[in-house]
């Protein structure tokens, strides 16, 4: 699904240039459950932004489902973000003035779905995350765990094959966090590829594959070694 070769991402502030990623080689297959770990500043979020086509690499090659991402136009990248990738953020990033229903509906509007189809899909998604009764609530009327579940429902709106979650439990208590990770496990077990950035070793332990970044490079990747199967045992 994902093929990255010698990916470099540099940021320039005035005359100063900083390399957040210094040559990443990464291959991700279908239906993997990956944790990306590493100290702050190691390039985790930068890598996730590139994987999810929120940003483009300064150098290197990135193929997503066979498409050369560097050659895509902004509209084509937006289409990928709409249909192939689902994002879940630490800060939830829900629209504060919109209801849960309207937040989940947003990617479907951009996908051009008709009203009736959109309503049906949103209802199914909210049921899937256990929030059918909160459809009319605004974010200020929900708990952190509920908001994150709405965010997950939104990420699943157009049935993407790839789910990217950046510290999804960072702003949650342990109980809510546990519920969220269970949802990600379910998603992996139903065929999605899930990549989670996390500082939490408990979460990393539940992932099938753990990639550790350090100073903009992959330090360790147990992708060819110790991996969990879907039952939680060693593959």
């Amino acid at each position, binding site marked *: 699904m994902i093929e990255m070769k010698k990916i470099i991402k540099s940021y320039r502030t005035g005359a100063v240039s900083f390399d957040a990623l210094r040559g990443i080689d990464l291959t991700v297959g279908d239906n993997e459950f990956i944790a990306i770990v590493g100290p702050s500043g190691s390039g985790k979020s930068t890598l996730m*932004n590139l994987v*999810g086509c*929120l*940003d483009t690499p300064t150098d290197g090659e990135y193929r997503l489902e066979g498409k050369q991402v560097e050659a895509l136009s*902004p*509209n084509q990248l*937006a*289409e990928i*973000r*709409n*249909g192939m990738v689902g*994002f879940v*953020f630490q800060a939830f*990033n*829900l*629209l*504060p*003035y*919109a209801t849960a229903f*309207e937040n989940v509906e*947003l*990617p479907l*509007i*951009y*996908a051009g779905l008709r009203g009736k189809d959109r309503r049906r899909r949103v209802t199914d998604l909210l049921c899937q995350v256990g929030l059918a009764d909160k459809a009319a609530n605004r974010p200020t009327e929900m708990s952190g765990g509920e908001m994150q579940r709405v965010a997950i429902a*939104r990420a699943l*709106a*157009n049935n993407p094959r790839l789910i990217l979650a950046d510290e999804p439990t960072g702003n949650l208590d342990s109980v809510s966090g546990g519920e969220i990770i269970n949802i990600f496990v379910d998603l992996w077990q139903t065929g999605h590829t899930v990549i989670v950035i996390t500082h939490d070793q408990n979460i990393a332990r539940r992932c099938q594959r753990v990639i550790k970044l350090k100073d903009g490079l992959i330090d360790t990747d147990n992708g060819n070694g110790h991996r969990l199967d879907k039952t939680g045992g060693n593959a």
Partner: protein
Amino acid sequence: MKPSVLYNVFARDFKRQRKRMILTLVAILWGTMSIMLLLAFGEGMKTQFSRNLKGLGEGIVILWGGQTSKPFAGFGKGRHIPLRVEDIEYLRSQVPEIETVAGEYIRWGIRFRAGKTLIAERVDGIYPEYESLRSFIPDSSGRMINQLDMDQRRRVVFLGWTLKERLFGPEMPVAEVVGKTIYMQDIPFTVIGVMRPKIQMGSYQGEDKDVAAIPATTFHALFGDPWLDNIIYRPRDLTANKAVEKRVFEVMGAKYKFDPTDEKALSTWDVVEQSRVTNNMFLGIQIFLGIIGALTLLIAAVGVANIMYVSIRERTREIGVKMAVGARKIYILTQFVMEALGITFFGGLLGMSVAYILTEAFKRVPIQSDVLDFMGRPTVSLEIGIIVTVILGMLGFMSGLFPAMKAASINPTEALRYE
């Protein structure tokens, strides 16, 4: 984007930036009201001037005899060219482009007596066509001179409304004046009607309010004037007035043997042309007023752009989220342009409503004033509404476009990090 979401965005922004939003809306309201009122005043003036110009006569050309300034066909220059009664029929038959034509005799210093009141005034010998040509519209209790009066050379008189007051007093109703006898040079004449008051801009022999008009045939029988003082005609096609005038010179030149290009052989006053010039002048005034109003509105539009820039800065993260879930740049652009248009049109609608209410209220204020009779009252027309709506649309679009372009160019990863 659902209207409900757009409305929620607007309401949320309104709550967050209430004072700024209200000030911006007030600025748009004020700018819109200003441009509407300025254009309404211009329209009112134009309409009133047009009406006033029609007081002399609508679409008419007045012809006087002149003096040749060029030798022609063996005749020298300096020859007097008169206008005769038969010229009326001659023009009617030779110039089919003329719709209506009639002539006029004028004599000054005529004694008029009604009861014990004695005044000196002018008398006009006119044709029935003057009701249409020169707006000699009678009050409903009387009538104008007709063909029977002409054929029978009746001693009947049609009075200007000020002359009626001078002879009979302002308190006597017109209905009582009609049928009364006045004496003109000691000859009894029956009053058949009084002219309905009108505003008259321009005259050539004194204002119509002071006229005593009798049938032209009666005038000729009484005074024996050999020549008409003037002939008045109206072209069928008012846009072809110049061509008709040229034709009139040709046929009169053929009859009186003068060079048709000799502009002094006959004198003309083309009221049609004057109307056109006046209309162009008022169009210029309206454009000028419109520009002033538009500049006022432009300042308000700058306020809209300002508030949009602030709004975009505060909603940077929201823009990042939308891009993350697949919003294309055009969606972001459209959203913010629509919001700017929404503020502009809402404020504009309020401004147009206030301007309309003010102009309608002003129309209903019972002020009698010569100034208002001359200048007219402000008038809001559909045309003005459309012009202002178009200006609002353009300004709303422009005030939203540049902030929207800034929003659409935001880097989503930076936007998602924005606090």
